[in-house]
Structures are given as structure tokens and as C-alpha cells.
């Protein structure tokens, strides 16, 4: 643990939305909690932060981020993406494997891991590809990635479904050797050839090729049965339909070891927005119907869906300023996730801030097996902490974000909640809602966590 990250006394923060208390952060850990903490006797200078009216939460952990580097540095870099993450309240992100080259070897995941430490804004956890080149034909060297300095535990061909049932079975079995998890992008490829949007009432009118719910649900149904059969751990990426929620609920009732994620945009937006033909609303899986949105919210509230994952997917403007069919799929999300979840889950009364901490941090850290993240806000715990002003209101402006991607589907919307401060390993990466400085790793490439 790197020392000398300063001492901070947070006064009067509502802990997980509950009673106000003070948090003393020193040398990377929460040194003390309680009320009326004082700073006398401290050898270091103490920065006191008045957190009256603010909610203290564990640093958010994203299970699903596209940082684009290496390969698409015109879309995002690890530096810009993790700045966005810190501003969004994250202290850890899982960087998806669909870079160029694909993160399917120990070398590439170590590169991403090192870039993350060099940037120093959050803990960057590389996700390893399940198959070589995401081609769905041959297992990548999962063990080598697990044993690398990046200590990969999550494996995914995200963007592409591991649709071969034998390959999926083998991957699920194999990762048991190092407590890994396969994160499946559930999309039956034949049912979605050329698909452009959710198949239903709106696609019928717009004449855009449909992406039917059954293409997601049939893969999830198969995979939970495979996970049961081989006794493995399965994670389902970006669940988007009411039927998927039902299948996962059924699987959990049977004791199958499955976790699931939902994106902020699937908690709020529907396919009606596609009527504009504005590709900022083009995403995979596609925006669904209001009935799906309601089922996803209910599933997240009752624990059927374990976590919120952003699927943050920045794209250069030319990939969105074009015809719908030509446009790339994906939306940015790191800097809006907290606000969208507050808006859709907390302000609707479906969840508390303690629930928020579970779905954005605790459960996400458990899925990724991140020991230092998603911890309780108690003395002795790593100081990955955020302060949120729940009363704030702001209007989304993609051009004022830290991400290089301007493709926010929330552009122009007024949303609640603002991240005031982010402490990463006891160091404030964000203060007063602005980027501060990155965590000062002693040697960013030394590989010591």
C-alpha cells in the first residue's frame, strides 16, 4: 500500500444515505469513523471537508467499460476514460477486451493494466477475451491472463456472443481453475443478422431490421443451464429484456451461480427514441420497450439483477454523424451512470442509497473478485469512497465531459445527483466536482498493487 496520500477528515456525510458521521481518511485507509472526530494529534496536515448534505458511498465499480486503448485512441484512451470514471464516482473499472489488438494474451492485459496504473485515476481491471481474437473458435490463454500481473478474473468476448455451446461450456468449466467468471454478451447471431434496433412496434414502422428479445433470452436460458451443468460461475452482460429478467430469476431460484448486469440507459430509455433516426440512440443490445424498462428496474431492485454496468462505449463523431445503419453501436455512460441510477431507482422509491452501494460497488467488486473495492465504510477498510450531492441538478452536455466520446444519449436531459469527491486509495482524484490529481503510484509499472 502506497503511503503518504494525505489525511482527510470528512465531516457530517450521510453514510450510505443513513445517519451523518465523520470519516477520517489517512494513508489510504479509513482510519476512523464516528461523530465529532477531531484532528488533534495528527502529525500530518489534515484537510477538512464539510460533507453536510452529502452521501458517502463506496467508490463505484464498473463491470463493463470500453476504454478503447490499445487501438482506438481516437475514440478513448485509458487516460481519458479513467478521468471520466473518476468524475463519475468510480474507483475501479473493468476494461473490456475488444481492443486492437484484442486483449486475449497476458501481454495485452498487462499493457492495459499498466496504462491504468500510469493514469492513476481508478483501478483498471482488464477483462480477458474468452476466445482468440473474439473469433469464437478457440479458447484464448485464460490461465496466462489470470496469472499475469493484471490478475484477470473476468473473461468476455463482449460485443460478440460466445454462441458455440461447446466452447461456452468449456470456457465456463476452465475458468473454475482460478475462480474466474465468463461474462456473456447474450446475442444469438443468426437471429440478429443485420439487426438495427429492438424488433417490435417501432421497428415495424421505421423499417429497421429487428433485434428480437428472444435472441438474448435464448442464449441466457442456454447459458444458465450450462452453468448449472458444469457448476460454474456465469455473468450476463447488459440484460435488456423483461424475459431475460424472468429467466435469471428462475435460475437464481434454482441456485445457479449466475450474476447479471443492467446498463443505466436500459433503465431509462426506450426504442421510441429511435424514431428520430439519431444514431446516438443506437446501442447493442438495443433500447427496448417501456415494459422492459420497468421489468429491469424491478429486477435490479429485488436483486435478480446484481449490478449496474455502464457499457461505456465512446465513438468518434464520424461514427455517429451518419445514416443509422452505418453508425456504430454504443453510448457513453461513466459520467452519467450515478445520476441515471439515482433518477430511475432512488427517486422512484425502488432503492435506497445502501442498495445503490450494493449494485454499483459491493456486488460488482465481488463479481470481479476485487478485494480492495466495494468494502464497507468502516475503520480499517481501503479508502475508496465517494461523496455525492443528491440534491444537485445538472443538464447533460457531452462536450463538457472528460470522455472523448460525445455520444451521450442523455444529452440535454436534466438529471439529479453530482459526484463531489472521489477518493481512490485514500487519495482524492476528484474534489469539488472537478478532477484533482491521479493517485501517486510509487512506480506505475512496478506491478505492486
Amino acid at each position, binding site marked *: 500500500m502506497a503511503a503518504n496520500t494525505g489525511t482527510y477528515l470528512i465531516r457530517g456525510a450521510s453514510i450510505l444515505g443513513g445517519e451523518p458521521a465523520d470519516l477520517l481518511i489517512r494513508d489510504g485507509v479509513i482510519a476512523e469513523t464516528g461523530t465529532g472526530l477531531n484532528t488533534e494529534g495528527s502529525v500530518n496536515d489534515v484537510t477538512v471537508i464539510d460533507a453536510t448534505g452529502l452521501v458517502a458511498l463506496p467508490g463505484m465499480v464498473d463491470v463493463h467499460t470500453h476504454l478503447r486503448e490499445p487501438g482506438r485512441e481516437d475514440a478513448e484512451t485509458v487516460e481519458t476514460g479513467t478521468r471520466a470514471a473518476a468524475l463519475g464516482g468510480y474507483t475501479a473499472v473493468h476494461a473490456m477486451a475488444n481492443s486492437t489488438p484484442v486483449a486475449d494474451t497476458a501481454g495485452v492485459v498487462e499493457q492495459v493494466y499498466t496504462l491504468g496504473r500510469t493514469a492513476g485515476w481508478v483501478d483498471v481491471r482488464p477483462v480477458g477475451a474468452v476466445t482468440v481474437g473474439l473469433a469464437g473458435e478457440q479458447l484464448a490463454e485464460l490461465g496466462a491472463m489470470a496469472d499475469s500481473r493484471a490478475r484477470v478474473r473476468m473473461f468476455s468476448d463482449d460485443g460478440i456472443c460466445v454462441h458455440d455451446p461447446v466452447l461456452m461450456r468449456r470456457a465456463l468449466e476452465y475458468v473454475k481453475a482460478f475462480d474466474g467468471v465468463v461474462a456473456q454478451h447474450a446475442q444469438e447471431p443468426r437471429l440478429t443478422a443485420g439487426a*438495427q434496433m429492438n*424488433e*417490435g*412496434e*417501432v*421497428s*415495424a*414502422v*421505421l*423499417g*429497421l*431490421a*429487428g433485434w*428480437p428479445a428472444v435472441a438474448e433470452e435464448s442464449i441466457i436460458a442456454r447459458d444458465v443451464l450450462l452453468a448449472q451443468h458444469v457448476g460454474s460461475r456465469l455473468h450476463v452482460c447488459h440484460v435488456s429484456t423483461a424475459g431475460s429478467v424472468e429467466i435469471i430469476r428462475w435460475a437464481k431460484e434454482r441456485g445457479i451461480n449466475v450474476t447479471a448486469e443492467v446498463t443505466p440507459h436500459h433503465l431509462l430509455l426506450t426504442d421510441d427514441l429511435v424514431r*428520430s*433516426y*439519431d444514431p446516438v440512440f443506437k446501442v447493442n443490445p438495443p433500447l427496448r420497450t417501456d415494459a422492459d424498462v420497468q421489468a429491469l428496474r424491478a429486477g435490479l431492485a429485488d436483486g435478480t439483477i446484481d449490478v449496474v454496468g455502464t457499457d461505456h462505449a465512446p465513438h468518434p463523431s*464520424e*461514427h455517429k*454523424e*451518419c*445514416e*443509422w*445503419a*452505418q453508425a456504430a453501436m454504443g453510448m457513453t455512460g461513466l459520467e452519467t451512470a450515478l445520476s441515471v441510477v439515482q433518477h430511475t431507482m432512488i427517486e422512484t422509491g425502488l432503492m435506497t442509497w445502501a442498495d445503490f452501494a450494493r449494485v454499483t460497488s459491493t456486488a460488482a467488486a465481488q463479481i470481479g473478485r476485487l478485494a480492495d473495492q466495494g468494502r464497507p465504510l468502516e475503520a480499517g477498510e481501503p479508502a475508496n469512497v465517494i461523496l455525492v450531492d443528491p440534491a444537485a441538478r445538472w443538464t447533460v452536455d457531452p462536450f463538457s465531459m472528460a470522455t472523448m466520446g460525445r455520444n451521450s444519449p442523455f444529452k440535454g436531459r436534466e438529471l439529479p445527483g453530482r459526484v463531489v469527491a472521489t477518493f481512490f486509495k485514500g487519495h482524492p482524484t476528484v474534489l469539488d466536482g472537478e478532477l484533482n490529481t491521479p493517485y501517486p503510484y510509487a512506480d506505475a509499472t512496478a506491478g505492486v498493487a
Partner: protein
Amino acid sequence: MKHLLSTENLSLANAIRILDTAEEMAAVGDREVKKLPALRGRTVVNLFFEDSTRTRISFEAAAKRLSADVINFAAKGSSVSKGESLKDTAQTLSAMGADAVVIRHWASGAPHRLAATDWIDAAVINAGDGTHEHPTQALLDAFTMRRHWARLAGTGSEGADLKGMRVAIAGDVLHSRVARSNVWLLRTLGAEVTLVAPPTLLPIGVEKWPCKVSYNMDDTLEQGVDAVMMLRVQGERMNASFFPSTREYSRRWGFDDNRLKALDTLGMKDTIIMHPGPMNRGLEISAAAADSPRSTVLAQVRNGVSVRMAALYLLLSGDTREPAATPALAYAGTHSTKEIN
């Protein structure tokens, strides 16, 4: 009306206005000098990302009859990866001073993108976008039906709608922009539409459309129909399991000689047979049906020029008054009603 992008949101008043203006334009086509000075000095660009000689020359003829300058821009296969983007193309046309862009595109929604962005300020006419809409085709179909319907009623076309007319649209509805545009426009004009198709060629969600759906051509004919519109079966559908074979398709959903005879047997002497072209003779329509006196195929082509003249005129003149009061049309002559089908 700044653009003509779809019929879904075209009001009854605007639809009638376009059809009435088209009647006046049709009169121009009957004169020895088939030309009006209405759009002199205006530039119309035919921007075609997909081959369609028929639609392109129809728009070209329409623009030229209104004395507009016409630029044909064939931009096949344009994409971010292969060449110039739609945005760059649009900005180029804007810089050249295009007043109207007639766009045909393989991607649904491309005309909406031109109209909704600040890439170009011109009037946009959708000349067919992907499997979305083809509004001028629906308008020329409605124009053709309206003349027929008015003649049966013994009245003039002007100001008339299609209330009570029973129209069957048969074939590949799923991939048809013509079917979509017709469903919305015919609803607006008061016609009763039945879609006749194999279930594989109807979109999920069609049950919410303002029409009936049938899987049986013969039942639909027996229930009485005033116009039958046959849709083209695209070659690429034939080996994609939408139907077992072209022969089976033809037997169940084609307008063959037996069904042509059935119109007589069932006493539907005034029922017309329509097709947007190009036809697959022997597949969705038999040669006898295509060439019968009931067929309006060539009248549709002729009316297409009039309807497109009307659309260009109304969008570019910026005139919101009734067409009869416009000076440019004052000498267009009396309404032609001689064309009966």
C-alpha cells in the same frame, strides 16, 4: 411543409393539397409544350445512393417540367469506410446551392438525417429509404386510385379522398417501403386496407397498423376489393426461407390468371390491379393480369411525374395558399380528367 419524408405524419389537408396540385400538373403533361416556369433558377439534386432509374427519371422529368436545373448525383456505396460520408456529401451539395434534394438511399432514415441535421438547408424529398417509406410512390398510387374512385362516383377528383375504398396490398410487406407509405396515406385518405402476405413477410408489430391482415389472397378477394396492389418480390428473399419456393409463393400469394378470372366471377368489374414496378411477371403477377384493362401500371408511371411535380412545386415555392390561387399555375389549363385509370 418543408420536407416530404414520410406519409406517416402527412396530414389529410397536405395530402389532398399535393393530390390536387398534381391534377393541375397533369394538365401540363397533356400540352404540347410540357413546361412551366415555376422553378426557374432553382436547383434540384437527385441524390441516389441506390440504383433506381425509374424513380430518378420520374423526378428528373418532374423537375425539368417546372424549369428547375437538375443535377443527378449517383453516390452508390458511399460510407464512412468506403468513401465520402452522407454528411460530407450533403455539405458539398449545400455549398453548391441545392434548393431541393431528392434522396434515394438503401438505409432507412437517411432522408430524416438530412432534414434533421444542419448539414444542408435544402428541402428534402424522400425518394425511397431502405425498408422505411417511399412517400411519392404512395401519393402517385393514391392519385391513381382517387381518379378511379371519383370516376366511379361520377364526380371530379379535386378535393376528394378515398373514403370507403377497399384496397388489398399483397406481397413482401416486411421489406416494402411502398407498403408502409401506402398504409399510412390510405388510412389518412379514408380507405380500408388489407395486407395480404405470408406471415414470414409481415413485420412483428403489424397488428398495431391501421389495417387488416390476411394470409389468404382468395378470401380477401371474395370479401370484395376495389384495388389490388401487388408488391415486387425481391430476388434476395427467394433463398432466405421466407417462403419455400417461388412457385408456392406464386400459387398462394401471386395475382395469377385464376384470380384475374375470379374478379369477373365475383362481379368486381371495376376492381383495378396496381403494381409499383418493376414487375416479376409470372411470380407476383401474371402477364395476363399485368396487361389486362384492369391494370394501372402505366397510369401509375404517368401519374408519378405529376405527383412529383406537385411535391417539388409545393416544397420549393413555399406557398401555403390553395394551389388554384397560385399565379404560376394560373395558365396550367383546365383539369384533365380524361385518364380513367
